[in-house]
């Protein structure tokens, strides 16, 4: 279990805390969604959970980050990469920039760990296969579509075999086709039992993915609960979050006194 225990974090040079006293846990095989208006602290929580804050970017961390009960403070980032992995929203800045094929790109992370070469090849192939992108193995990663590039970034993360995945708005910069591609890959990962913490504006995507959802407001945890209850909560709009279309429309229909009209999920779409 990955636990944030009353975590606060202040960026280097900032006047105040970006997040304050956040307590959140990510259990094994669980998908937790993280929603909130812009600048409410979603990305910060992702950086803290992945260990990059404060290790890679400085700043001041309060509270504790625990993995299986052990405080990870003081452990260098390269010791954490096999345990927690993070994927960012911009696929381009996640490419190492020094590889010429997708296979090499996905192998970049585990190669840094100095593992055995056969093991490296095996893990890389496995990661590509998990996301269904073996077909891209020999392509130039810089010449892919945004969605494909993001899958490559995700595969590069999987090849490190982390137990917990942290995804910071993985579809934010993708076109509809790319969003669908990555969304399907995330579904597949969730079904395989990966533990995922995912920040995302697209609540429709979260609705089908998450067990629980945490809502942030100005750096604090405003709500935490089962995905269905949270996404149906009236307070979401006030917190700057668009609820999934289906539920939101149903509520507006109900409010119009058209209670008998149900807009049940469309089959097979």
């Amino acid at each position, binding site marked *: 279990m990955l636990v944030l225990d009353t975590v606060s974090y202040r960026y280097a040079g900032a006047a105040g805390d970006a997040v304050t006293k956040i307590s959140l846990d990510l259990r094994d095989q669980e998908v937790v969604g993280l929603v909130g208006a812009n600048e409410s602290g979603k990305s910060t929580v992702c950086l803290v959970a992945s260990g990059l804050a404060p290790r890679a970017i400085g700043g001041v961390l309060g509270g504790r980050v625990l993995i299986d009960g052990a405080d990870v403070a003081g452990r260098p980032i390269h010791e954490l990469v096999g345990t927690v992995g993070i994927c960012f929203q911009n696929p381009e800045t996640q490419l190492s920039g020094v590889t010429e094929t997708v296979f090499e790109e996905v192998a970049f992370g585990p190669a840094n760990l100095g593992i055995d070469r056969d093991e490296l090849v095996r893990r890389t192939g496995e990661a590509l296969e998990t996301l269904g992108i073996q077909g891209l193995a020999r392509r130039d990663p810089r010449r892919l579509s945004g969605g494909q590039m993001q899958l490559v970034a995700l595969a590069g993360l999987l090849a490190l075999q982390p137990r917990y995945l942290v995804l910071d708005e993985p579809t934010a*910069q993708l076109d509809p086709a790319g969003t669908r591609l990555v969304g399907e890959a995330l579904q597949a990962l969730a079904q395989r039992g990966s533990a995922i913490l995912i920040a995302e504006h697209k609540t*429709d995507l979260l609705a089908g993915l998450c067990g629980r959802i945490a809502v942030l407001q100005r750096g604090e945890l405003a709500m935490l609960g089962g995905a269905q209850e949270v996404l149906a909560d009236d307070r979401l709009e006030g917190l700057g*979050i668009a609820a999934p279309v289906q539920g939101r*429309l149903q509520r507006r229909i109900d409010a*119009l006194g*058209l209670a008998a009209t149900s807009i049940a999920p469309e089959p097979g779409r």
Partner: protein
Amino acid sequence: MTHLHLEGLSHVYPGGVRALEGVDLEIHPTERLALVGENGSGKTTLVRHLNGLLRPTSGRVLIDGRDAALLRVAQLSRLIGLAFQNPDHQIFSSTVRREVMFGARNAGLRGGVLEDAVVRSLRLVGLEQVRDDNPYDLGYSRRKLLAIASVLAMDTQVVILDEPTTGQDAPGVAAIERLVGGLSEAGRTVIAVSHDMRFVAETFSRVVVMQAGRIALDGPVETVFAEQSWPALAASRLEPPPAARLGASLGLGSTPTETALLAAIGAGRS
């Protein structure tokens, strides 16, 4: 009132990528038009022809009947404002206010008119509170609103927004929706490039679907998102907005917007 007309517009990038192939398009004053299509379909290439950043390989761009080829980019920028997708490709000033002033000053605004334009556009995007802040202290989504404001302040007849809702939260998207409506009411033409079909349906009146450098569909929102257009949308790797899908699944005809959906349900009940 500015009338835009693309005639047989083709563009081939150096290196041979054919980005546009014989595009014909007329855009009338005060129209709210959304350009949609997957990445690489030619949307951005198309809008960059409107202000002369790209010049046609063949065909013409006519602005109020005048060939845009005769005008320099600096001249065209006074007629047609284009806010780029990535705000970090343009922000360089030390304060939000100065950044907004840059374009307006280039457009020839001075004195009180300039001040007015700056204040007004900052208010439109909701950044008046942070006008003296350093732009890079703002998050990405607010930097993006700033980039839009700096183009609005130029007071152009035509405003083009490239992917305005990327990275915006619900209030940010709502602000942009209001802004587009306001511009259109003020008699300006608004063109947006977008991947967000809900935003497109709720905010624009006409949709042009691009596919491989050509126009695949062009019509009012109700037609482009109607069920009979779905196969064509799917061929362009697009999906209709959620309200359109719900309306169709309930047999209510074309309901691209949430308001239209609710109205159709209401009408069916009573």
